[in-house]
């Protein structure tokens, strides 16, 4: 599903966020991406999202070589990748329903179908009763669940999360991680960047560690 081949990313100011990263993830796999802050976790996710381009090497997602995707095709690519952010990135000027509906509206799904799929996604994260509220009326954990609902409403085959539990207490964090596991169980490939090693060790999933822009191989 994801394959990194000797990926190097150097930013314009000369900073090398990733020096030489190679790994692959199977379809339907779930993995954690760890490393100290500044190790290159966010850069790695941004490369998969095409928010950044590789300097050297290749990334293959699905059947697509990302270096061959034209700038104008990026939006269509992103519709197949769900992303969850640490700060949720919800829009506070609209209801929960409309936040989750956004990716479907963008993809041009017809309005009746939108209603059905948004409610299905909200139901999965346990917020069906709150669809009419504003994100501001929700707790941090609930807001993150809205972010997850928005990421999966398009039924993307790949789900990325950048420190999704960064602002949450341990109980809520575990709840969120369980939610990700549930999506993984129905076939979604999930990659979560997190430095919460304690939490990760509870979950029986593969751990990909990077340090100073390189893969760390455990014996």
């Amino acid at each position, binding site marked *: *599903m994801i394959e990194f081949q000797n990926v190097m990313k150097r930013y314009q100011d000369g900073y090398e966020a990733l020096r030489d990263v190679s790994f692959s993830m199977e379809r339907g796999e779930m993995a954690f991406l760890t490393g100290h802050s500044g190790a290159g976790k966010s850069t790695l996710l941004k490369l998969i999202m095409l928010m950044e381009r590789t300097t050297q090497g290749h990334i293959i997602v699905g059947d697509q070589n990302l270096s061959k995707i034209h700038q104008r095709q990026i939006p269509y690519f992103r519709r197949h990748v769900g992303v969850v952010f640490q700060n949720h990135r919800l829009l506070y000027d609209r209801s929960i329903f409309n936040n989750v509906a956004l990716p479907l509206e963008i993809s041009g799904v017809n309005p009746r179908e939108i209603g059905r799929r948004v409610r299905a996604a909200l139901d999965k994260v346990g917020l069906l009763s709150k669809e009419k509220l504003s994100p501001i009326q929700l707790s941090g954990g609930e807001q993150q669940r809205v972010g997850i609902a928005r990421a999966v409403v398009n039924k993307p085959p790949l789900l990325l999360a950048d420190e999704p539990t960064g602002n949450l207490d341990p109980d809520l964090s575990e709840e969120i991680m369980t939610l990700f596991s549930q999506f993984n169980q129905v076939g979604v490939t999930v990659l979560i960047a997190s430095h919460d090693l304690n939490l990760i060790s509870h979950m029986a999933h593969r751990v990909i560690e990077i340090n100073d822009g390189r893969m760390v191989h455990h014996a």
Partner: protein
Amino acid sequence: MRKQTDTTKKVSTTGAKTNDKPNALSSYFSHHQKTYKATFKQLLEQPLASFFTCAVIGIAFVLPALLAILLSNIQSVQHNWDGSAQITLFLKKGVPALDGNILSETIAKKPSITSSHFVDNNTALEEFKKRFELQDAVDYLDENPLPHIILVQPDKSLKSIDHIEQIKNSLLKFPEVEGALLDVMWVQRLNSITQLLQRAAWVIALMLGAAVILILGNTIRLFIENRKEEIIVVKLVGGTNAFVRRPFLYMGVFFGFGGSAIAWILINLTLYMLNGPIQDLAISYQSTFNLSGFSFESTLLLIVLGMSLGWFGAWLSVRKHLDDIEPT
């Protein structure tokens, strides 16, 4: 496992346009509808600010529009001049009356001339005396100071002053003719004034059009700044640039429409206020002249123009500011 194969299919279409939606067109239109409604609502949420923007645009439209109306009125005057242009030919001193008569007959036979009438200088002097009651003064003169004249009437179907001017020039070529007078100077002057005003109207319209575009561009830039976070999120979940631009383009069109509406009201108010004095002026010239107002076509043109300018201003702004906003 079924889910898995479904997944495979989806990813392999990645990068291509989503054509797996059966009624993509209807949802496209439904999104347009939703966008313009939401945009309109957003403008109504700040009624005063939106009104001011529209008012600025409206006022900018008024001046060129009024000039255009003035011009169309002047042009209607030009089209309605009665075509009674008469050319007066003054013959050289010493040309005998008989020769003058023959010349007059020659001229009468020329094409595009209706009639030609010879007036010898004695007759002219008699008329002059009668008309101006200058019997005594004229009697003091040793000789008749007036030349023989020929009054030439060009074909009435000739409306173009240029054409009549050409006839005048051709008549000037006869050796007996000293000079010629075409009594349509006022029409010519009006023509020049009209041309001047036309030029001025264009210059003013261009400048104010540019001003409208700049004002709108700046207003929309502020809206873009305010919605930066939304734009980033939309781009992150797969919104195309066209999708992101859409509400701002609608906004420009709405502002343009509002501006046109305000301009329409202001123009009609101005015409209403000017019509009285213009009638008085016309009466003082023993003429009837009605300031023709703003036709349905002009109204339509104003609105279409306003909306187009609005769209264009928004498009420029969006192009400059919006495509630069990329998620980081």
